């Protein structure tokens, strides 16, 4: 949510279990002189017990004047009432805070830009008064029944987080179409299998719910990697929690509409993955299923990408030109889960016409996957800059 700032990466503090708020567990969770807390209703740092079943939505926002209104309105339309909406206006230079306030949200604004989305979320965390904290992106709207569908997953005390189905709000440009297919495939095919085994690889940062007390106890969202959602998901697994994926709870983020934003987002996601693996590999080895899910993802990120860039062209040049068809080999296999997911939403034609864009996006995706592997693992040049993905 924050443009081009350098990440702080403090070590995780040692934390003792607590049921009350301790707002200063991370440096970014401490308010400083100049922080503004402007709200329609009184908002203070919360201390004490939380009302069971209550829900706060926390929205980090940086220059989201165009989108924040729609996001808040979608929250107000929810069939399951949201108790509080808090927007962390991370020193936007546009009217984000003003618009959020006009739509009825509580707005807090730090004195200085927080540097990354995780830090902005952590700034807002001490103000969350409710049992559950739903984090959503400022450009993400929800289906009207999304909260109603998502929240029951948290009834089980063993569940530390739950996430929903993600679909791009706009499917117009080639990049949005490619992402639309990517999401339809992943959330229709991979994610339900991961959920069956109780190990979704990631609770998507654009729409996930957590237990507030546990979030506070764990020190909030980790700022040591650029993949804060994956990092937090794996922290929860290490703590013995389960994570759930609820396919019926749907959210609609705005995806990168052009190559420049897509490049930034893919770089951040891929770097985040490698950083999370380097931070968590020892804990991951203890988590059944997840360790293999991650190992296979690692293998494919490097080997499949190399096959894509080297082996197929070499075979086409030296063996038979028709080997170039290898690029389209898996089209029918991709089409089946995609068309199943699209059929359920009455979007078959949109899916069929978007499939070619998926191949362009995948080519770019593999390039950035290999590039970040080189930067993060071989050259040890860690990405520390958090850039907005749209």
């Amino acid at each position: 949510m924050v443009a081009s700032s350098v990440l702080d990466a403090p070590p995780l503090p040692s934390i003792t279990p607590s049921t009350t708020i301790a707002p200063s567990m991370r440096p970014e969770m401490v308010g400083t002189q100049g922080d503004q807390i402007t709200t329609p209703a009184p908002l203070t740092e919360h201390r004490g017990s939380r009302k069971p079943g209550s829900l706060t939505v926390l929205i980090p926002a940086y220059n989201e004047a165009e989108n924040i209104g729609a996001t808040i309105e979608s929250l107000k339309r929810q069939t399951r009432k949201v108790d509080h909406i808090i927007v962390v206006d991370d020193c936007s230079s546009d009217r984000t805070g003003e618009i959020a306030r006009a739509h009825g949200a509580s707005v807090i604004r730090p004195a200085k830009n927080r540097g990354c989305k995780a830090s902005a979320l952590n700034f807002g965390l001490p103000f969350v008064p409710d049992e559950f904290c739903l984090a959503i992106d400022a450009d993400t709207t929800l289906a009207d029944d999304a909260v109603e569908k998502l929240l029951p997953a948290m009834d089980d005390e063993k569940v530390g987080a739950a996430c929903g189905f993600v679909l791009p709000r706009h499917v117009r440009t080639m990049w949005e179409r490619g992402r639309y297919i990517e999401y339809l495939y992943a959330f229709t095919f991979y994610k339900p299998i991961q959920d069956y085994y109780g190990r979704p690889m990631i609770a998507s940062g654009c729409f996930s719910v957590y237990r507030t007390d546990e979030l506070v106890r764990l020190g909030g969202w980790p700022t040591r990697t650029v993949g804060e959602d994956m990092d937090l998901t794996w922290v929860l697994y290490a703590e013995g929690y389960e994570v759930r994926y609820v396919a019926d709870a749907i959210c609609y983020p705005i995806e990168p509409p052009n190559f420049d934003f897509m490049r930034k987002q893919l770089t951040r996601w891929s770097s985040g993955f490698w950083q999370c693996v380097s931070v968590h590999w020892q804990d991951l080895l203890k988590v059944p299923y997840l360790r293999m899910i991650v190992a296979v993802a690692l293998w494919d990120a490097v080997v499949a990408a190399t096959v894509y860039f080297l082996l197929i062209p070499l075979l086409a040049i030296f063996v038979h030109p028709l080997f170039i068809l290898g690029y389209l080999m898996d089209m029918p296999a991709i089409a089946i889960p995609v068309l199943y997911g699209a059929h359920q939403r009455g979007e078959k034609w949109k899916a069929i016409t978007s499939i070619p864009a998926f191949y362009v996006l995948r080519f770019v995706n593999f390039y950035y996957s290999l590039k970040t592997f080189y930067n993060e693992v071989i050259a040890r040049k860690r990405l520390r800059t958090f850039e907005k993905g749209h």
Partner: protein
Amino acid sequence: MIFGLPVTGLGGLFYLILTIWMPVREAHRTVRGQGCPKRWKQIAVSCSMMAGLFITMFTQAWLISMLMPGATAMSSQAMGTAEFDRFAGTQTGGLVAGAMIVSLITLVIVAIVVHTLRIGFQVRTQLRARGAHTVARA
């Protein structure tokens, strides 16, 4: 974000195995009185999709063998599954079987590496704990 080549990469085979294992695991749960109709529905959907993927994989291999029979035979030869085609009288079975075998061997190697790391790490932790205990007693 999707890593790797969906379906045809190692991930494809891994998720295939996870899908095949789902009804077995759920049947075991059901026998123990922990069955859930909603989960069976999800398993049916995943298994149907996987069946569709299998059918398309074979159809595609057949199409490739029609388009470039020489290359298909060469691939089967390279993967050591040409005998399969001669035995079964097909041009495509060897290609699909070869791809599956290569992926399966790779997956087994990845699994062995992961579990060796896990066991090695577990042993190291236990040895350290024992060492710390001995020092404390001394």
